[in-house]
């Protein structure tokens, strides 16, 4: 997928001005996030913390030995009768899939949900090579029909109202009898059922890949994952290289974390483990199994001790649902595959910091993402690291304008001296007088300051500073003598 991460401010403004998108986003906290809290509430806090720590430890260990575990995974996939393909970037990965499709005369592909395939822009490439490619996750299907990209990692079409979906189905699939949500779902079921039965190839993502057994694991609720990996004669699974876990028994940890964090479920309807193609004695299943393992910028995260933790992510989207910025600007503003707090970390590394320098700033650093993350990924810390890199980068790539830099330098001077601070306060009080009403400045006319008040009020500087209030009204104990002025060596 071509990044348009440079357009963050414009796309964010569009989302903010769209009432439909705002209404959908408002539902995330009451929907997904409350479900998450409820599901976690069912087990003891100690158990939950234990799972999180255990998962972190597994990820840390696995990434530290990633080369060994990938080799083990590949060996076992082959032992199971499957093929393994390594791809350094999206182009290589798509070329591989295309080659498998061509070699086998594939005409119709059914796809399960896969964020990695979004990185690869796989649908577009297959379609333009004349291979019909159909998304089968309901949300993905909707956005495919609409020609859009996913708005959310778990619920890709969450920004669309049922009326929009109905209009879309009407346009693309023909007459609809009814436009309520169950009927729309049934329409999709009937259309896609035919595709499942006719498809030559199923493409799935991978939630976890078990090195020890050469198994790929797919977590779904709809059952489209099971359909696409069971019915067509070829199954191609695409995964980011960080998805590997060492042992079968590690799944107990991750499969307890993911459904709870993602959708507030103790288990999803389906958890499907695929270990190679059908064996001779099996009743059904694909004749070929291919695993495509993709780097596509992950190596840069791996090599970066400050950012490696971002590879622990299991794509549950809990951090999106809680983020005050994502819940306003939505998924499309981030301009690439991964939105929200985790997107603000991985996108700049994967597409290049100069192209995505706005993203690390799309955060209030409130820390809610880190708190909800099942892997306890320290997203705010990494955002600060990236901000630092933007600020220290070549001048052309710096975020701040010259006047912002100047402003902060002045601010630094003033803050360092009590007298300067008091003087600045007096000046500011005088200057704000014509603008302040009822404790707020509602509108400034002078750019660039006017940009601040376009969408929000600026609290006016109060008549009395905290310092004054403290000294005159609140202090009950004698003033503390600064260390530098205390007599030395007396030991009190």
């Amino acid at each position, binding site marked *: 997928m071509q990044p348009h991460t440079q357009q963050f401010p414009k796309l964010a403004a569009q989302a903010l001005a769209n009432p439909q998108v705002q209404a*959908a986003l408002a*539902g995330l906290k009451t929907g997904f996030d409350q479900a998450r809290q409820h599901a976690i509430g069912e087990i003891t806090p100690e158990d939950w913390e234990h799972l999180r720590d255990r998962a972190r430890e597994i990820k840390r260990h696995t*990434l*530290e*030995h*990633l*080369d060994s575990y990938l080799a083990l995974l*590949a060996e*076992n996939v082959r*032992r199971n009768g499957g093929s*393994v393909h*390594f791809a*350094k970037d999206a182009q*290589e990965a798509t070329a591989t899939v295309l080659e498998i499709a061509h070699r086998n005369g594939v005409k119709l592909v059914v796809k399960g949900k896969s964020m990695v395939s979004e990185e690869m822009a796989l649908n577009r490439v297959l379609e333009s090579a004349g291979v019909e490619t159909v998304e089968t996750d*309901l949300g993905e299907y909707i956005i495919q029909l609409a020609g859009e990209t996913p708005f959310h990692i778990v*619920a890709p079409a*969450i920004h669309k*109202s049922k009326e929009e*979906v109905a209009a879309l189905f009407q346009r693309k699939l023909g007459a609809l009898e009814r436009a309520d*949500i169950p009927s*729309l*779902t049934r329409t*999709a*079921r009937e259309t*896609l059922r035919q595709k*499942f*039965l006719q498809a030559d190839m199923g493409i799935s993502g991978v939630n976890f890949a078990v090195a*020890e*057994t050469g198994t790929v694991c797919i977590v779904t*609720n709809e*059952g*489209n994952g*099971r*359909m696409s990996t069971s*019915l067509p004669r070829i199954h191609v699974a695409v995964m980011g290289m960080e998805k590997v876990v*060492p*042992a*079968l*028994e590690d*799944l*107990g940890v991750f499969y307890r974390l993911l459904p709870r964090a993602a959708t507030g479920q*103790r*288990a999803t*309807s*389906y*958890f*499907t*483990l*695929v*270990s190679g*193609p059908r*064996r001779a004695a*099996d*009743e*059904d299943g694909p004749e070929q199994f291919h695993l495509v*393992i993709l*780097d596509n910028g992950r*190596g*840069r995260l791996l*090599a970066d001790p400050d950012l490696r933790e971002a590879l622990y992510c299991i794509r549950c989207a809990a951090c999106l649902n809680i983020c005050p910025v994502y819940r306003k600007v939505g998924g499309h503003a981030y301009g690439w595959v991964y939105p929200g707090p985790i997107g603000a970390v991985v996108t700049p590394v994967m597409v290049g910091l100069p192209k995505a320098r706005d993203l690390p700033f799309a955060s209030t650093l409130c820390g809610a993402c880190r708190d909800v993350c099942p892997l306890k990924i320290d997203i705010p810390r990494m955002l600060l690291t990236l901000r630092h890199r933007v600020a220290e980068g070549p001048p052309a790539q710096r975020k701040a304008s010259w006047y912002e830099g100047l402003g902060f330098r002045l601010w630094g001077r003033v803050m360092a001296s009590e007298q300067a601070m008091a003087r600045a306060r007096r000046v500011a009080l005088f200057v704000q007088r014509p603008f302040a009403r009822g404790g707020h400045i509602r509108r400034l006319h002078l750019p660039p300051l006017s940009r601040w008040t376009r969408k929000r009020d600026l609290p006016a500087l109060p008549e009395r500073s905290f310092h004054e209030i403290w000294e005159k009204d609140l202090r009950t104990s004698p003033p503390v003598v600064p260390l530098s002025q205390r007599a030395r060596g007396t030991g009190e």
Partner: protein
Amino acid sequence: MKQEEFLKRVRDALGRPEGAPPPDYLPLKLRREDQRQRAVTIEARAEAKRAQLIARLADVAALQGWKVYRAPSAQEAVGYILALAIEKGARSVVRSAHPVFLRLPLDAALRGHGVRVSVDAASSGASREQLRVTVAQADLGVTGVDYAVAETGSVVLAARPGVSRRAPLLPPVHVAIVEPHQVYESLDDLFALRRMALLEREGDMGSYLSLISGPSRTADIEQTLVVGVHGPVEVRMVIVET
């Protein structure tokens, strides 16, 4: 890209030399004897609290969206499935060739009521293409299971001759028949037992393992829950308590 090249890139990113010692990871080190010991312990624990586990399975499964029926006998299980077939107006039922059906005279009961019963297995003599069409058109899919997990209200089906992937997936109603000795406490038990199977079968654990924990569902439009997107609209768990 060649595997060796790719792995070298990974090693370079990690700053790891080639031929570094293999990782030291406990769950991978348990050999067959140790794993067998664990399996024995798990079996014994499950055996000791079977009644409790079955009750828990029934409760959690209901929360997960199963309709659960605890059948006091095989006869009553058959009666329940027959009544369900009649209620659904089913004309065609598919079942797997799981050994549980040797103990459950389902075919005769259904046929006695004019319902067509097909077995989705090569051993039935039908061609693969025929079987696929039959399953796709069936009103009811009835299968045995390999395990049931109380913690998550799941049934688990492993690849084995006579058990297809599609029989529990394509028909609008899936009936899973659970026997008491298949019920385990947790996901951990399940994966430990599967690892045992892996070590016993020279590293091949079969082509798939499918955990089913409720009906096919989605909330992709306006976060509104709808059941029966692609897989079964309705799932029934029949626990045969003999």
